[in-house]
């Protein structure tokens, strides 16, 4: 299909990829630094968490095996880019590896994430049939229908997936730029808000009668 979106290629780093290959025996390295990986075939999946004393200064990648299959990853990419497509200097969600993060999330051995797992995977499975082989019009209609859905299962999936996408996107450097977060830099002092900000607050105080 000429209007098919570019296939999603995982953004995990090569070191992690090699580790996963060792673990799951199912991933295939695609050039340097990226990998497309498939479902677990052979070997025992890793289900442990990072423990109560992980290294914090240079965190290691989450140790648990990933469970999403290629169709789920491709669908996640399409849906993430529907929520946050590229805009000006801001990249699309898929180029920031958001589908990989969704995989990391739903694969995690912790209660909250395990609770999200069926919601996300069932939702992706249901959506994949409507978007992966559809033309652009059909795909757009399916995504729009999900956004406006009123049935509880679809709505739950939509809200959860959107929430994860937004969180994952805006925690990246690109997300910081897009939303205007300018902290996390060393300073010799904290000068407080600018005159411009103070003036804006004063205008608001007048409106509020304060």
């Amino acid at each position, binding site marked *: 299909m000429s209007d098919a979106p570019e296939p999603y290629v995982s953004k995990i780093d090569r070191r992690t990829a090699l580790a996963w290959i060792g673990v799951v025996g199912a991933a295939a390295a695609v050039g340097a630094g990226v990998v497309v990986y498939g479902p677990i075939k052979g070997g025992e999946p890793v289900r442990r968490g990072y423990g109560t004393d992980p290294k*914090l200064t240079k*965190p290691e990648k989450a140790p648990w095996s990933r469970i999403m299959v290629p169709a789920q990853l491709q669908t996640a990419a399409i849906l993430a880019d529907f929520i946050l497509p590229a805009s000006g200097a801001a990249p699309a969600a898929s180029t920031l590896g958001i589908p990989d993060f969704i995989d990391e999330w739903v694969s995690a051995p*912790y209660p909250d994430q395990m609770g999200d797992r069926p919601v996300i995977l069932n939702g992706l499975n249901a959506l994949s049939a409507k978007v992966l082989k559809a033309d652009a019009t059909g795909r757009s209609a399916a995504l729009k229908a999900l956004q406006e859905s009123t049935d509880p299962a679809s709505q739950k999936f939509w809200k959860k997936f959107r929430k994860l996408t937004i969180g994952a996107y805006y925690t990246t450097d690109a997300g910081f730029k897009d939303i205007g977060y300018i*902290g996390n*830099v060393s300073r010799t002092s*904290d000068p407080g808000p600018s005159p411009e900000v103070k003036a*804006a*607050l004063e205008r*608001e105080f007048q409106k509020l009668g*304060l």
Partner: protein
Amino acid sequence: MANDNYDVIIVGSGAGGGMSAYHLTKSGLKVLMLEAGRNYDPRVETPMFNTNAEAPLRGVGTPDKPFGFYDATVDGGWQVPNEPYVVAEGSEPFIWWRPRMLGGRTNHWGRIALRFGPLDFKPYSRDGLGYDWPISYDDLAPWYDKTEKLIGVSGAAPARNLLNTPDSPDGCLMPSAPPRAFEIFYERAFRKMGIPVIPMHGAVVTGQMEGRNTCLFATPCGRGCAIGANFQSTTVLLPPAMATGNLTITTNALVYQVDLGKAGKAKGVTYVDRKTGEHHSVTAKSVVLAAGSGETARILLNSKSSAFPNGLCNTHGMVGRYLMDSVGTGVTGQFPSMEGLPPTNDDGQGTQHTYVPWWGYEKQKELGFARGYHIEIGGGRHMPSMGMAGLLPDDETSVGDDLRAKLRNRFGSTIGFDGRGEMIPNDDCYCEIDPVAKDKWGIPVLRFHWKWGEHETNQAAHAVKTFLEVIDTLGGKPMGEVETEGRKAISKGGEMIHEIGTVRMGHNDTDSVVNQYGQSWAVPNLFVMDGAVMVSSPDKNPTLSILALAWRSADNMATLAKQGAL
């Protein structure tokens, strides 16, 4: 180590243990410190400037790291592997936060360093509830001065003379960074309500201080601080204590018993090595327990002998009693007036720059509860987290540029109001040894009992009402469901991580376990120097007072040692 002649064994390395080690080693005493957790060095282990995207699951809290991946806490949280505790059947919920690391909870604490006030030491005299301390504010004030100057505290301001909200003398505090946009904003509402907003006292070095680095005004204090600009026992107290040559630290040493010698004196302690499972006994001329209120009580209750069949110092059944926490409750608001402000760096100095001290001391009768709460208020354009979608209403479904614009507009427009209030000790809140449950090494564990009193639940309801009024005054709307009924709005017991008071101080051995210097009435060379000795639980967060009390007690202990009285 076993053959060394120690003057003092200190159990615990947090605020109480760290401060007592600091003073006792500087006084020339040979000290062995036993810490249940592993060695920990904030200089090389603190994730300064790491972003959430670098962490598994973008840094969200998990059972392994309940306060988030980057929280400094090691091997702990609401549960510690292999070290269970029990909440009694029929009890209200109680949760117990424990780390297993050198420096204890001083590594991740909130750095809010408020002094207790004069009324806080004599609550019974004021309203007939609870108990008076055997000391007054004036007894502790010089030690607050010394502590603030040693650990580095911000919040200097002209004296305001507010009731029961002590001003520190000149020279004790450093200036806070200026109020941020959201702090300027909320102040206006409180001003209209006649409620003061004043600089927070935060254990962060915000100016020039000899021997210390100044805050970088970035990266959260709860991760710890690699440059030692905030207060941690591991960066401020233990290094100078080590430099005296008088301090030996043994980590992974879980003390479970004080050993009695001849003439009813403590001869040392016994611990299990958490890594090897081996049990060791060590001796010294005196023992200081500073393991945290729960663990300190547990050690005493597990130290049974013919002289103390119900636990050491527990002849009158007071060990474990008068367990207290702070009253916690909170509401977050979203404010259209804060939307769309120009980008500002709101990382700040780690603690809040300003706060609201309790203002209702003279209105207690009409309020329907005794005592009060201060308000800790958070907001601003902080590093985005997985909670970013929470900026938007739950039924909001936008995508693309519309979504981007809405998030950009709302970023920094929410403000959270949290009450931290006084709890009056009651007979339903205590800990004891569970008759059945044991830890991995077969040591009996604590069983907690908890029930908030009406003063506390009424206070929580008042706090919620106040927060809603402030949010409305500022043209905002509360976010999420707001619980206005006090018993539902109040925090769980222990949830504020201010559990104190299980080995309280007093006037004699019938009203207390230790004297005003933490010296036990029953065993004269056994001391307690953590929050366990506290008689009441004022709204002010306890760490600064634990430090000041420990210093005062350690000074008395050093004097006794020099006199040969131990």
